[in-house]
């Protein structure tokens, strides 16, 4: 008999228990810093620095659209300098972290799942274990840590570029001057706006990388299995971002 959806998700051997067990093993593997330490910088570059171009591309257009959209909404009802407030607040607190997270769930999550999935089906993960390496220390910890450390950095860039492109749009395409845009930007600004976004993005990074690792290491034999695990990693990474987004809104706001 096929197990029910509920037991597959929340049962003793279900998805939630599996993620929990793996998370605990990953935390335990943190003690093995001699294994993951030398790999961390390389992963930070690969998962973080190499993701900057796509993130900035998204941030530029988000800033432009937000600026134009808020002008459209506010014209005739609210003073136009509120465009600065909306662009700043929205990008720092929500769109910066979430859109960056989603983009990186595609790029980073898929790349990790495909890499580890291929290693799994070609027995490279088994080979690693037979050489006395712990798979959690060698494969999971450096990726999860690198993503948790680098997502906030990439998100900070995205925030800056998004606000900048919103400002450029406002002064060139809208009837708004720089002092007016800055007035709006400062109006509701609180330092919490920034750290709230960055804390969220760190958790998004850890979740996206963990999903990529779990799906990759759970890949079944063959190219189809690797493809399936890659797709699942992206979908689960995006879902995790949305769940964590709601969680942080409940906890920190």
């Amino acid at each position, binding site marked *: 008999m096929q197990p029910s959806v509920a037991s597959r998700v929340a049962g003793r051997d279900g998805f939630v228990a599996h993620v929990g067990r793996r998370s605990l093993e990953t935390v335990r593997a943190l003690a093995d810093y001699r*294994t993951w330490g030398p790999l961390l910088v390389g992963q930070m570059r690969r998962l973080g620095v190499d993701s900057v171009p796509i993130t900035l591309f998204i941030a530029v257009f988000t800033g432009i659209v937000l600026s134009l959209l808020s002008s459209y909404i506010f014209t005739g009802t609210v003073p136009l300098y509120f465009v600065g407030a909306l662009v700043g607040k929205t990008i720092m607190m929500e769109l910066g972290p979430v859109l960056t997270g989603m983009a990186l769930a595609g790029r980073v999550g898929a790349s990790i799942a495909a890499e580890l999935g291929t*290693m799994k089906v*070609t*027995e*490279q993960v*088994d*080979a*690693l*274990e*037979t*050489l*006395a*390496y*712990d798979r959690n220390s060698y494969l999971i910890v450096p990726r999860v840590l690198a993503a948790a450390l680098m997502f906030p950095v990439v998100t900070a860039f995205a925030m800056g570029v998004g606000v900048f492109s919103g400002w450029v749009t406002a002064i060139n395409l809208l009837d708004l001057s720089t002092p007016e845009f800055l007035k709006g930007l400062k109006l509701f600004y609180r330092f919490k706006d920034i750290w709230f976004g960055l804390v969220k993005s760190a958790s998004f990074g850890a979740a996206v990388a963990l999903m990529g690792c779990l799906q990759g290491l759970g890949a079944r034999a063959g190219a189809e299995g690797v493809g399936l695990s890659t797709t699942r990693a992206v979908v689960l990474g995006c879902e995790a971002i949305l769940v964590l987004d709601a969680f942080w809104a409940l906890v920190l706001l």
Partner: protein
Amino acid sequence: MIVLDHLSKAFGPKPVLQGLCLEVPDGQNTVIIGHSGSGKSVTLKLIVGLLEPDAGGVIVDGEVVHEMTRERLMALRGRIGYVFQFAALFDSMTVEENIRMGLVKRGYDQATIRERVEESLAVVELSGTERRYPGELSGGMRKRVGIARAIALKPHYILYDEPTTGLDPVTSAVMDQLMIRTRDLGVTGLVVTHDMRSAFTVGDRIAMLYQGAIRQVGSVGEIQATEDPVVRQFIEGRPGDAAAAPAGRAE
């Protein structure tokens, strides 16, 4: 010594091993032969703790593998080299980096590591390939690098998973010579294969795995002279159904 004690393992409803018993004596090459899918590779993975048995156990140097702590298991793996069927080289690393992996983990200094890499590549006659990637090597060369990676660690045991499968006769003979040379260096070998020519060449003892248990075990001469119809059919490579014959007993 490696002792397989009433090993049982199933994947879902499909039993693979059903009470397998076998002793692998030190300093010899023991060969496990059997049909594809008979559980030969599963047996090797149980020995290094990559899989856990459903019943029974593997005892290596007096310790039960599946009862070991993580640290003890890692120490055990330091004493066992594993040559995978498709080599399982890390494809993003060069040949040298592949061989270095296990040595770095054991904390050797750079000079020793360099020496061991050169030495092990010389044994498998692949000196000069240090900077090449696995994708640039032939199947036979990849398998030899797999052996070099295993012997660089100077293990007590080496497990060979189908070492000659998919190789041309000349490369297979080279692999056989390597396994014999490794045995002569004092390393205990456990080879799983269905290549009978290779089994008779490298084996000191041969065990036939059939329906999840050892059907017969003996010296090369004893296996060649066997009257067990299942073993006979397998070593002669004859088609037909010998399965109806009663199961023999492992020694």
